[in-house]
């Protein structure tokens, strides 16, 4: 194993100081931030691509911590760890699918360090929280010396391992809207329960037009099997590990929009999804497996929601 390189690192104590360090970061000569380090530390041996040349530590930036409810949204600081998400009563109440996703990441050692901002900025197509952020229509609040702006999740991952962040920008916070009665389901398929990178990962969300308003966590829709099955609105389906970046599958969403979770709709949506995604063969899985399993997992989610 090659000796790890130890790139120079600045350790700013406040956000303005961090912005100053990042001010001359450019695509050709980037300053690489480190949050929990669970992705970037793997790169310092130089075995996987170029190791970073100069770095900035985010761990002292209190501005990037904390979980709060603010104006109809849960706001997560970029440095929020998976362990914090799992333990947060706010997340457990309002974002159960995100809590579920956090629990599938790595194992305890990784969850204690890895951050949601790092997952998003790292932009792996297999990042497990990313489909959840897409399905929940999250927005990233990002900033630099030049000011702050918001980027919606569906505009954030622009190409393979590339985000819409400028080289001098940091993710500050992630805003996730809540309270519209939205339901969300998450499913990750990996080799084993812990420490497995996804072969396929899905998040499905919808608003049940006929459901109790503002509930957001009522499942299944027809628990007794004989109540009315609701109509879904504003359906979002997002997947990871099936393209060069996490994606929304809008053709399949269209099949589910204004529909009810019946067996016929589940069949049609699964078929649409198998036709819509174009995964690849790689070390973790095959294209064919991914296509079949993604469609099955979606079918199962719809069945569970329909209570049949």
């Amino acid at each position, binding site marked *: 194993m090659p000796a*790890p390189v130890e790139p120079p690192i600045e350790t700013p104590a406040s956000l303005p100081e961090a912005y100053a360090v990042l001010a001359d970061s450019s695509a050709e000569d980037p300053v690489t931030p*480190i949050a929990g380090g669970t992705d970037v*530390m793997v790169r310092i041996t130089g075995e996987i691509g170029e190791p970073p040349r100069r770095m900035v530590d985010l761990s002292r930036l209190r501005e990037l911590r904390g979980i709060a409810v603010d104006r109809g949204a849960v706001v997560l600081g970029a440095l929020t760890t998976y362990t914090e998400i799992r333990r947060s009563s706010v997340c457990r109440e309002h974002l159960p699918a995100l809590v579920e996703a956090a629990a599938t990441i790595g194992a*305890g050692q990784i969850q*204690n*360090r890895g951050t949601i901002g790092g997952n998003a900025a790292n932009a792996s197509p297999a990042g497990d929280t990313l489909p959840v952020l897409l399905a929940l229509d999250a927005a990233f609040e990002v900033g630099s010396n030049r000011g702050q702006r918001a980027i919606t999740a569906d505009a954030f991952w622009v190409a393979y391992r590339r985000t819409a962040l400028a080289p001098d920008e940091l993710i500050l916070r992630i805003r996730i809207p809540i309270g519209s009665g939205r339901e969300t389901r998450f499913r990750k398929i990996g080799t084993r329960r812990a*420490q497995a990178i996804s072969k396929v990962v899905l998040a499905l969300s919808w608003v049940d037009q006929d459901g109790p308003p503002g509930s957001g966590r009522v499942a299944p829709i027809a628990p007794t099997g004989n109540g009315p099955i609701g109509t879904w609105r504003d359906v979002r389906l997002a997947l990871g590990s099936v393209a060069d970046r996490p994606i929304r599958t809008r053709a399949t969403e269209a099949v589910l929009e204004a529909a009810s979770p019946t067996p016929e709709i589940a069949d049609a949506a699964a078929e649409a999804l198998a036709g819509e995604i174009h995964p690849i063969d790689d070390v973790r899985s095959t294209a064919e497996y991914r296509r079949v399993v993604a469609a099955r997992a979606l079918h199962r989610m719809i069945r569970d929601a329909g209570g049949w």
Partner: protein
Amino acid sequence: MGEWRFAVNGEAVEVEAPGMRRLLDILREDLGLTGTKEGCGEGECGACTVLVDGAPVDSCLVPVCQVEGARIATVEGLATTSSEGPVLDRLQEAFLEMGGAQCGICTPGMLMAARSYLDSGGGPDEVAIREAIAGNLCRCTGYTKIVEAIAVAAGGPG
């Protein structure tokens, strides 16, 4: 280069090192605490597990600049001393008793992950123990004896 201050097994230390040096290397090379092992160097195996402020982390993934002011616990801190010599931690006793260590490479990391599990109130439940050591790989024991040893240390039947 920077100067970093933190506590290791209750003792204050100060090291001069590049901020990106791995905590694993600081412990083994700078401080001579070679109980902590390197397996994979990339967060997969857990051999390098230490506790930072009580929480298990892979020390191969932690740069020293991020532990300033923190309390680090390593395997060297588990046993205590008495007038009769070192006294093993209950977990170490249980690993010996139940055959939880073979080649020993995974053992320091297993012990620290298990220590944190017990410190946070974990009991002898097998499923919970397996989750607590899910980030620690062992190529020798098949895990059963390790799980049994942790259960014994947690007060379960031997």
